């Protein structure tokens, strides 16, 4: 029983082993509750998305906001790099905001008192100009912000809840199952222990002080053990069980060679995804610039860090490491977490850009990870499994039109990745 428990501890390191079983039960209870809550909120978010938004172009605004603004601004009143945008429309009118977004320096130069004030307040950090955003775009963005400000909870859930629920659906039940199982086994062992104690006490009480009787009990016990050990059927059964267990353990071991699920190495800089992707909700794409373009998602170069950290938290010793790296022109040597073997070809843009998958699908709930950990096994079985189950994202993609048509003519099932050659060797090995 030791092995599954250790495995388990890897998944939920927040359960200290020494804590009482009661704590585990409470935890199970809590996580079940949180799961239900997450699912509920997904439903709520779905409803919110379905309901027409007030501005009409708020939906478009949301995309624009996430792609252009979210790196420095929160939709709430929280201060990120720049001020929180909640209530911006009440502080200034749209015309002013448009001017500001198009060219903030011009507004400051014009001597506008609010502009100068906010410029000084944020230690004279220049805001990037967005001359390409039309007035409608900007209206849309603020419509989205206003919507978000009026209904903060569902919006937050929409941003973080859905993928979390997805992740929970894929890995949650098995975690829970393991916890319950372990708990049950432990309880059983406890009960067994208690029973043995009771039996011993009772037999002692029944036998009174007769040493012979005690000897009798031990002798009887020994004799029965001998009888069991002498039984050829039991002996061979034990042997077979042992052999089979050894074979199973060997096979399991062989299959897990090179599988690094759960690998969470210490990085040269204690960068927290929980903070950046979780709390500040910086889009993954902002730093991992390759996800939509190519094979590699790209580990951000130090100059990307400097976009924000040129202003924020400059004194932190961890941030100072980036400064040192730039000054010495020596790159930061991150430890690679996801090591796909060379013989397998994987392309981020195929999955993120074309298939429209969320990063969390494979990387787990990055937004909650202080230290990034390899969540998926990255084995071929894992890839194939997903290719068998996943529908092809054929929406608005003319590449697939003919395939969809042909598939519809001879099957009623949805078009899966496996149906278009997603299981073929040369899709990943060449």
């Amino acid at each position: 029983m030791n092995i599954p428990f250790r495995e388990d501890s890897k998944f939920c390191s927040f359960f200290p082993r020494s804590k009482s079983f009661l704590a585990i039960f409470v935890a199970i209870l809590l996580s079940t509750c949180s799961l239900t809550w997450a699912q509920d909120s997904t439903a709520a978010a779905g409803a919110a998305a379905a309901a027409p938004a007030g501005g009409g172009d708020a939906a478009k605004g949301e995309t624009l906001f996430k792609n252009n603004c979210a790196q420095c601004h929160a939709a709430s009143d929280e201060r990120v790099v720049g001020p929180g945008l909640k209530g911006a429309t009440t502080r200034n009118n749209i015309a002013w905001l448009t001017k500001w977004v198009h060219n903030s320096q011009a507004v400051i130069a014009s001597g506008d008192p609010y502009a100068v004030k906010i410029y000084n307040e944020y230690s004279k950090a220049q805001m990037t100009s967005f001359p390409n955003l039309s007035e409608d775009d900007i209206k849309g963005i603020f419509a989205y912000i206003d919507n978000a400000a009026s209904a903060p909870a569902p919006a937050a859930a929409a941003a973080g809840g859905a993928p979390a629920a997805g992740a929970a659906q894929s890995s949650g039940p098995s975690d829970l199952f393991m916890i319950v199982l372990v708990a049950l086994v432990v309880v059983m062992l406890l009960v067994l222990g208690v029973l043995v104690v009771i039996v011993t006490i009772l037999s002692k009480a029944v036998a009174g002080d007769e040493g012979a009787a005690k000897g009798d009990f031990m002798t009887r016990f020994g004799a029965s053990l001998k009888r069991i050990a002498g039984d050829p059927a039991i002996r061979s059964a034990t042997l077979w069980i042992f052999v089979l267990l050894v074979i199973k353990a060997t096979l399991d071991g062989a299959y897990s060679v090179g599988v690094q699920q759960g690998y969470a190495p210490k990085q040269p800089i204690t960068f927290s995804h929980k903070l950046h992707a979780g709390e500040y909700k910086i889009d993954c794409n902002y730093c991992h610039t390759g996800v939509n373009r190519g094979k590699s998602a790209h580990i951000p170069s130090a100059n990307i860090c400097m976009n924000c950290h040129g202003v924020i938290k400059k004194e932190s010793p961890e941030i100072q490491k980036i400064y040192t790296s730039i000054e010495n022109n020596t790159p930061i040597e991150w430890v690679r977490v996801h090591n796909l073997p060379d013989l397998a070809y994987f392309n981020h843009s195929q999955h993120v850009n074309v298939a429209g998958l969320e990063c969390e699908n494979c990387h787990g709930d990055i937004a909650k990870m202080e230290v990034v950990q390899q969540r998926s096994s990255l084995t071929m079985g894992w890839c194939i499994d997903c290719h068998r189950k996943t529908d092809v994202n054929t929406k608005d993609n003319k590449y697939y039109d003919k395939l969809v048509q042909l598939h519809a003519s001879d099957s009623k099932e949805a078009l899966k990745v496996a149906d278009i050659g997603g299981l073929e060797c040369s899709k990943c090995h060449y």
Partner: protein
Amino acid sequence: MENTNKRYWRGLEELRNDEKFIKNAGSEFSEAPTENQYESLVDGAGTHRRDFLKVLGFGMAAVSLAACETPVKRAIPYVNKPEGEFPTIANWYASTYSEGGDYASILVKTREGRPVKIEGNSLAKDACGVSARVHASLLGLYDNEKLKGPKKGDDTKVAWDTIDKDITSQLSQIAAKGGAIRIVSSTILSPSTKSVIADFTTKYPTTRHIVYDANSSYAIVKGNELSFGKAVLPSYDFSKAKVIVAVDADFLGSWISPDTYSRQYAETRMVSSAKDGKKDMSRHYQFEAVLSLTGSNADYRSAVKPSQLGLVVSSLYNKVAAKLGGKAIATPAFDAPHLDKAAADLIAAKGNALVVSGINDPSVQVVVNALNNLLGSYASTINLDVPVYFRQGNDIAMNEFVEEVKGGKVDAVIFYAANPVYDHPRGAEIATALPKVALSVSFNDRADETGSLVKFIAPAPHYLESWNDAEPKAGFYSLGQPTISLIFNTRQAQSSLLKWAGQPSDFHEYVKAYWRKNIFTQGGNFEQFWVKSLHDGVYASAATAAPAGAAFTGNVDEAASALAKKYKASSTGIELAIFENIGIGNGSAANNPWLQEFPEPVTKACWDNHANISQKTAKDLGLEQGDVVKVDFKGKSIDVPVIVQPGLANGTVAVAIGYGREKAGKSANGVGKNAYPLAAFAGGFLSFAPGEATVTKTGETREIAQTQTHNTVMGRKSVLQETVLSHFQKDPLAGRFIPKIETSEGKVDATDLSLWNGHQYKNHSWGLVIDLNTCFGCGSCVISCQAENNIPVVGRQEVINAREMHWLRIDRYYSSDAEVGDYTAMEIASENPEVTFQPMMCQHCNNAPCETVCPVLATTHSSEGLNQMAYNRCVGTRYCANNCPYKVRRFNWFKYFDNDNFDYHFNNDLGKMVINPEVTVRSRGVIEKCSMCVHLIQEAKLTAKKERRRVVDGDVSVACGSSCPTNAITFGDMNDPESKISKLLAVEREGRAFHMLEEINVRPQVSYLTKIRNKDAAPKAEAHKEHA
């Protein structure tokens, strides 16, 4: 998993850092075996059975150790990511290949700042052909044996400043006392570089620039000067020629600018089975001694001894002049097969005819010019007003230099892209005189034959690290830009010259200024013009003037009498013919394993040069293939093995230049023998046909590394299908062999019977069509494929063991005179055989025999028509290779990439930079084969998906198809009705298209188009008589 700083060791030796372990850490074999010493099939290390358990036990332990902890891998981003550079996404740059007058406008594919592939630049139109040598020049960039910095005497640690100071002060002293300074170079195409040399000459006025070419065309320049008063190489337009006569001019292989010519020539050879398709071809006569690539593709070819080739020209002139009213010249009576026919065809095609000759003799060239003049070629196929600059060498000036240097009259000599000690026939004389020259400098990238004798080497970087420009043709410019930062501490030759001339040494700025001043004449924004020219790679200053004719003022009689003195109608001795072969060329890039292992298209031999001798001569001399002979010309001799070469003129021994390097590097040193010293000078002109030589058997034998041993197709019509033009004009199916199978219901087509269910291709169906009529066998595709797919070089011994790894080979077949059915006789090629080239790669069969026999399902069929190979699944049973009817599967016998026994650049870190990161590097013990560049297909599909559209024709190209200078290989999606391949097949399916070995009904995705010769349809027996 928490401790990531753990050490991992593969054995106790490593843990203890044993000396022996450290020494052997890099090698796969414990001891370096010599040739033939590979004991075991697998790794040659001689593993014994008893070691098996030990190895197994250790392996188990290692595996369990490995399973516990993960080796730490680093992910290292840029500090400051350059704009436009995205890791894993390739960038393409236009640049220029110009080495010793060989020119190509190229596109360079770079990944993470390192060039990984070269392709032709289609914006360069005619000049976009990229030969095997250009493809292979990529590997030259990563040659680890180059000098890592400047060298003074034996000191390689010297700084640039030191040698600059030394050289400048010596140059000033020499110039002050009026001493002679000489710059010796091969052809320089770059106008900016010439301007640099002019600046240098201004500073040091006693400087003279001497240009020579290892394989000279100076006589053509001289001939044009004598004939028209224009000392130029004209531009030829083969595409306009209906009849081509080439006398010893290998214009598809090694003569002046073969890539351009083959492209033009291919235009005249293309035919179509469509009702209104093109059904005429040019007719091509070749008179030559050596069976060249061009001769192999000729419709009529005559083998003529070198001493008689001049008479071919004069006799042809007289025959044509008799009909077209020219003045007859006095010439010895001479006849060669097809001479009358050639004359008649030339006369008939007047105005669309072209006669070219590669004989480096001005008297021959004057007669050729007179002949072309009679035929009106100067108004159509030859343009004297648009000269080309591919060969600027002056043999006479170079000879004068040799005399000067011998006489101690030269005080300073600078060698720029030149290695005369090796590649000049008088190299030995230069070598003895060179140490006496007060100041000698070389810009070569290594201490080669010449470089090792000079006082200073100021190594210049590879062309892919350099700025450059070129003017290959008048008014046509080309720019070269660096695609990687300097690998070693090198400096461009131009910068060095500028520095020594006391000028700013930034050659980039210099080129830019030169272009601004001399090429940018149209006004406007220069920066825009510059950026566009850099992007395009080429710039044509004006529309090319059409050939306007020229007034012939040469003295034909004088030329004829000189010719009659030199060439004899009868010759009895064995004559020496020296030729340039296609892969190695003139030998300047010989330290390139890709080129060394590139099979010469006609002999199919590699890793050596040979004494090529005809079948009859071999018999007369009692020689057999592999006998080492001493070829002796006037006391200078080389020992080379014999190749019995059908089609070679009887009484001729032919040896290739470019081999026998001594100081080029590990891959080239000692490979073959240097044939340059055997060449001679006739009237100051370099002659590769110096005269009679003696051939004597040494008694030794040397095995020949040949990639093809069967010379003829043995009458198998299902392999090669060909016909003559007149038959094809009547019936597009002419020459087709359609196999029939006998059934109970009578004969049916082989393809009507199948045990298989076949495949359904819903999405794409990738295929290739190869036109045998425009494939000339140049082999550009072979090297392109090698570069694209990380194909290892195996070395001479392994080629002999028939373990070469090329995924794409070109089969060369000779015709045989033997009766059909006499298989022993059929294996012997004719005396002067017809030759056919057939590129052969995985045919991607739909009913693939390999797929059914694989016990581990490592080779399977894709839903897009590809036969896929999963290396990681392969256990190396080789059943598939046995069952493959086309023999295109290759087995990895060794771990070529990390094995010092295969020291061909791939075993060091620098050499490994050439590896294409998109393609797996295969390890030993697996089968590999053509994947139809599936990685490029996948890439193009992904791009299309990202753009939310279908893949359109032209998005994907395969390495062989994109490199073909004649577009003989068409690749595309056969499911897309708009694709070029679909349209081609729609026309040719009922015409020339055939599958190889159709009777076995494996239904390949690769089709071939029949070869068509523009010959008179004559019964075979008659054709024979003519040959005899």
